[in-house]
């Protein structure tokens, strides 16, 4: 909004911070950390793991294992998907996935072999303690990064679940600034903070590996000012390994953890939604991804994550490390939170970016950063918009939510595009301040998914048209070829009969001639 858009300016310790448009200060509830003694509790793999066969774009992919096959922890189940535990493939069938509306997807169902799985945990722990090996492992990784990346199926753990390998590819093209995102701006989510408190050294090594791999000019680790313990742990760890990383403390303003807001806060650059940060020489990784990379370099694939159990109705809030594919129900049972299953509203993800769950029998994935139990509430019905403009004041993407909402609800996708709907990061700030309780964010999610659907449909239509044209052309060609062949056949028949008739003619001519020549004689 150019000249009158007000940008929050904040100058904290370290480099100058720039801030971003809008945003909100939220209650920094972190029950998962505040109410338990251990920052992270390790959970055993449950009896059954369900691993949906979906890629980053949620398209189905084919399994590379068979029914009843025995798989080892870390073995590939499908392209980019690894087995989170040792066990046997019990089924490959459609199963419920973690999703806003109950939906099924083809999944590998693993029965965990507890004995050999425990052994694998034990071995992994031993490998972790062997720190002299790190330098060799790191140099091996720096020489052949692809080996590690392919084997360990790294995904971004920030929420979007973007494959790390493709992001690193972009980063290898030469970047200026590497940003490690440790700003966990949503209330109730404390997994990154807990990880930094317990695994600071390993995270520091992971970050160091990223710095060395990308050869970036500078690397910033951004932590919110509301996590003093994590800040202390990380700065000590970075110092101890002498990493070229600048720890930057940023103010806790939601959604500062969103990639675009964070880049803006740290560098002052506003990256339009249709450009990638790497186009501007910037790449962002989540702090948990850096940790996963550390583990991957040490030979341990990414098969678990920290999940914050929280929410005001959670009896025993804490952070747990769980294998991918563990069901929400199993996690709640194992942590003494089983009572919430029937009494509270379960939610996957934070209060703003998450979604309510219809059933707890769904497996968690790399994107599940929190499981919340909240009391069941009835929402205030939406009232007419009074055009107060609060929504655009808080929008970090500098949009006009109020106008967008109008067009989103009337399915005017062209207007939505004009108003830059695609730039909406679905942060929910506009909902939080709207005096008329309008469901702005939902309408944007609706409009976006609908636009995507329409685009897919149009592509399909276009493809159908092209294939039809090809089909027609082929049919026509075949017809023509047939006609041509018949014609040729006729011609050749004629051609064969022609010389005959010529010969006869010639013979007749000759006969006539000889007769003539005889007459005068």
């Amino acid at each position, binding site marked *: 909004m150019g000249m009158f858009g007000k940008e929050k300016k904040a100058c904290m310790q370290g480099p100058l911070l720039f801030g971003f448009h809008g945003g909100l200060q939220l209650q920094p509830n972190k029950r998962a950390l505040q109410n338990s003694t251990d920052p992270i509790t390790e959970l055993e793999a449950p009896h059954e793991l369900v691993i*949906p066969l*979906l890629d980053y*774009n*949620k*398209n*189905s992919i084919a399994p590379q294992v068979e029914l009843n096959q025995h798989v080892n922890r870390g073995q590939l189940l499908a392209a980019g998907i690894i087995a989170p535990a040792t066990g046997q493939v019990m089924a490959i069938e459609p199963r419920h*996935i973690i*999703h*806003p*509306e109950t*939906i099924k*997807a083809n999944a590998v169902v693993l029965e965990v072999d507890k004995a050999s799985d425990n052994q694998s945990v034990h071995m992994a722990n031993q490998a972790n303690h062997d720190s002299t090996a790190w330098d060799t492992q790191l140099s091996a990784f720096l020489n052949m990064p692809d080996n590690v990346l392919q084997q360990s199926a790294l995904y971004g753990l920030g929420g979007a679940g973007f494959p790390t390998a493709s992001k690193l590819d972009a980063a290898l093209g030469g970047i200026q600034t590497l940003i490690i995102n440790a700003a966990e701006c949503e209330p109730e989510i404390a997994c990154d903070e807990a990880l930094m408190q317990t695994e600071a050294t390993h995270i520091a090594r992971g970050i160091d590996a990223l710095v060395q791999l990308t050869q970036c000019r500078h690397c910033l680790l951004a932590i919110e000012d509301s996590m003093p313990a994590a800040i202390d742990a990380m700065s000590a760890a970075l110092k101890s390994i002498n990493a070229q990383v600048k720890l930057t403390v940023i103010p806790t303003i939601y959604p500062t953890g969103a990639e675009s807001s964070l880049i803006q806060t740290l560098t002052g650059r506003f990256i339009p939604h249709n450009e990638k940060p790497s186009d501007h020489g910037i790449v962002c990784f989540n702090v948990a991804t850096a940790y996963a990379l550390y583990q991957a370099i040490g030979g341990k694939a990414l098969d678990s994550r920290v999940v914050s159990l929280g929410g005001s109705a959670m009896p025993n809030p804490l952070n747990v490390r769980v294998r991918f594919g563990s069901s929400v129900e199993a996690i709640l049972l194992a942590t003494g939170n089983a009572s919430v299953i029937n009494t509270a509203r379960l939610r996957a993800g934070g209060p703003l970016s998450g979604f309510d769950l219809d059933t707890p029998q769904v497996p968690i994935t790399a994107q599940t950063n929190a499981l919340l139990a909240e009391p069941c509430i009835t929402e205030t*019905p*939406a009232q007419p918009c009074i055009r107060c403009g609060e929504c655009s004041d808080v929008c970090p993407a500098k949009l006009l939510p109020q106008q967008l909402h109008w067009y989103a*609800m009337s399915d005017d996708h062209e207007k939505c595009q004009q108003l830059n709907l695609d730039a909406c990061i679905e942060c929910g700030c506009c909902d939080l301040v709207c005096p008329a309780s309008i*469901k702005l964010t*939902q*309408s944007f*999610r*609706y409009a*976006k*998914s*609908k636009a995507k*659907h329409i685009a*897919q449909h149009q592509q*399909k*239509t*276009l*493809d*159908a*048209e092209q*294939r*039809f*044209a*090809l*089909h*027609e052309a082929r049919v026509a060609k075949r017809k023509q070829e047939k006609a041509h062949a018949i014609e040729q056949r006729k011609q050749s028949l004629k051609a064969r009969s022609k010389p005959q008739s010529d010969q006869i003619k010639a013979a007749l001519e000759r006969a006539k001639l000889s007769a003539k020549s005889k007459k005068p004689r």
Partner: protein
Amino acid sequence: MSTFGVIAVVALTIIVLIAMGALLSYLSRTGSEKHADPDAELIEAVNAVLPQTQCAQCGYPGCRPYAQAIIKNDEPINRCPPGGEQTIEQLSTLLGTPVLALDTSCGQQKPEQVAVIKEDICIGCTLCIVACPVDAIVGAAKLMHTVIADECTGCELCIPPCPVDCIDLIQPEQTAASWQWPKPAS
């Protein structure tokens, strides 16, 4: 009101309006477009609106031929059942003709569907491959055939030729990729 006042108000109004108009036209200007062959362009536009199911229910061997017929032979715009009301409306705005009810002699509008071959019954006769207008069926003679669900338009043209009636039409299932957020109650 003094004479000066009247003149001032009128002059101010005119100046402001002219300035706003100029600004508006400057801001909303678009590049001029070239029109080569109006007919061909119209056919393209009509074809883009048609659903490309290629089912031939309109009486033409596909959507493009029907589009040509609409422009060249003034064929009515209500003969496409897969497109239904929505397509008719779009066509009527595009061509500036009145909205008509769907000509049900061509067929009824149905929900989205795709064909599936019961693979254990299929005898591999290749008749459906020949019938499919969009090449969405793969298979070779005497071997099992299958439908590529993503490419099938649900045109039903493969159903009659099948000698063993092994092709069904089903409504495509909701998948994680096709799921949409529901619209909020307004």
